[in-house]
């Protein structure tokens, strides 16, 4: 138990130090633009298909689960609001983050870890290049931006999926769904809550994947352990931070 706590403290400390080093470079605009664009393509553009599929089915699943209650209480008119409230404030950012944690976070850790064990990070330092400016800071930024933008269109697609499911299962017309969504029960604050969460999740996922990637020891098995650690730490971090952000915003 004590050893686990020490390990967690060491990880948290390492991520904190890395965060500080990244912030210094961001403040001085010392990061590689080409690497940032490359990371945006790998993390963002190549994640579009999986985010689309996840989001559409997420919206549909929410309606499926809510259908019995909606039918019992005749709450078809509130379907749009319910789907919107759940998607924008919680489901959208949460599931998008979890999906990207597996796809982007794990991949980033594996790439960085492989660069460590094959001495590519040492080669950068030997070439008088700061790996934090060149590799890590661009990836950190790209991760957060990817999650933010992915959450935006995932929210829209989840609502689209919910609207289609509402029509198919509950015969709720798209116009009724839309009216429920824009009835005034939802406002920009609900959108902002979800986007704030996406940025917070992005930060924790980026720090976890970069920290574990750079800390790899022990060759190929070490890379595997690091990837596993990233996914676990990211998921745990997402849920913990989701609680605190939700609590902090709701009061």
């Amino acid at each position, binding site marked *: 138990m004590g050893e686990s706590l020490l390990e967690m403290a060491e990880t948290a400390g390492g991520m904190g130090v890395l965060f500080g080093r990244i912030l210094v470079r961001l403040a001085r605009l010392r990061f590689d633009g080409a690497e940032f664009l490359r990371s945006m393509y790998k993390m963002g553009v190549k994640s579009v298909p999986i985010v689309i599929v996840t989001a559409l089915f997420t919206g549909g699943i929410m309606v499926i689960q809510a259908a019995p209650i909606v039918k019992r209480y005749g709450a078809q008119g509130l379907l749009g609001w319910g789907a919107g409230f759940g998607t924008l404030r919680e489901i959208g950012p949460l599931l998008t983050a979890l999906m990207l944690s597996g796809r982007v976070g794990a991949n980033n850790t594996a790439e960085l870890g492989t660069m460590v064990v094959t001495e590519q990070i040492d*080669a950068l*330092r030997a*070439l008088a290049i700061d790996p934090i400016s060149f590799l890590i800071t661009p990836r950190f930024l790209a991760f957060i931006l990817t999650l933010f933008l992915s959450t935006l269109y995932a929210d829209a697609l989840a609502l689209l999926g919910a609207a289609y499911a509402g029509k198919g299962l509950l015969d709720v017309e798209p116009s009724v769904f839309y009216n429920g969504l824009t009835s005034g029960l939802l406002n920009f604050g609900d959108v902002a809550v979800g986007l704030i969460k996406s940025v917070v999740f992005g930060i924790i996922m980026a720090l976890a994947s970069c920290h574990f990637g750079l800390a790899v020891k022990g060759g190929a098995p070490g890379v595997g352990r690091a990837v596993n650690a990233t996914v676990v730490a990211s998921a745990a971090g997402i849920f913990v931070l989701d609680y605190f952000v939700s609590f902090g915003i709701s009061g």
Partner: protein
Amino acid sequence: MIQIDRIEKSFGHNRVLREVSFEVPKGCLYGLIGPGASGKSVLLKITAGLIRPERGRIVVEAQDIFSMADIELQKFRANFGMLFQNYALFDYLTVYENIAFPLRRMTTMTEEQIRDRVADRLKRVQLPGFEDRMPSGLSGGQKKRIGVARATVMQAPYVLYDEPAAGLDPVTSQRIFNLLRDEQRAAGSTVIMVSSDIERLLTVTDRVGMLYKGRLIFDGTTEEAKGSQDPYVRQFVHGLVEGPL
């Protein structure tokens, strides 16, 4: 000159280097030899400032590199070219981009000048036309030669080679050693070269040092190394089966 002064390094309980001291005069090609796990690669990385020792100094151009601030040390490393034991090529860049990488980062050369320099390097390591290949599509020997090309493209005043000819056939291996010696003579650079190919290494070195279990047990000229009567040095240099190693 590179001055290595009482370097000590441990990893956990494993003492890898024990009070290692020697000097590499300016313009010298220094061969560092020794059995596996004797600390050669670690010493090379310490010399490049990539690993900090527990004790000791690395003095280059009268500056103790470990007393420099991180940013200062980072800039100072631009004076070094380095070939890593496992090539350390950047996987996501082509051969051309790998070799051009230091030129783009540290010089103001035009694209045409970079192209000419890269082509020259590839010709010198006998891999002309390999510009568009990816590292994953190369053999181990080819990766090693691309690594040599990248390490020498800047014509740095100090160059560190970790097994420059490992994985190469005997003819190519000797050509690479000759190339590195010719480069060193032309540029007047100061070189430390680690190699297990003792026979070929000693055809190009000026001075030799031998590490054994973390200690420097020999430091002298190439001729002195060949004629040494120290049983460890004699056995290793001449590849004898019988002996204390």
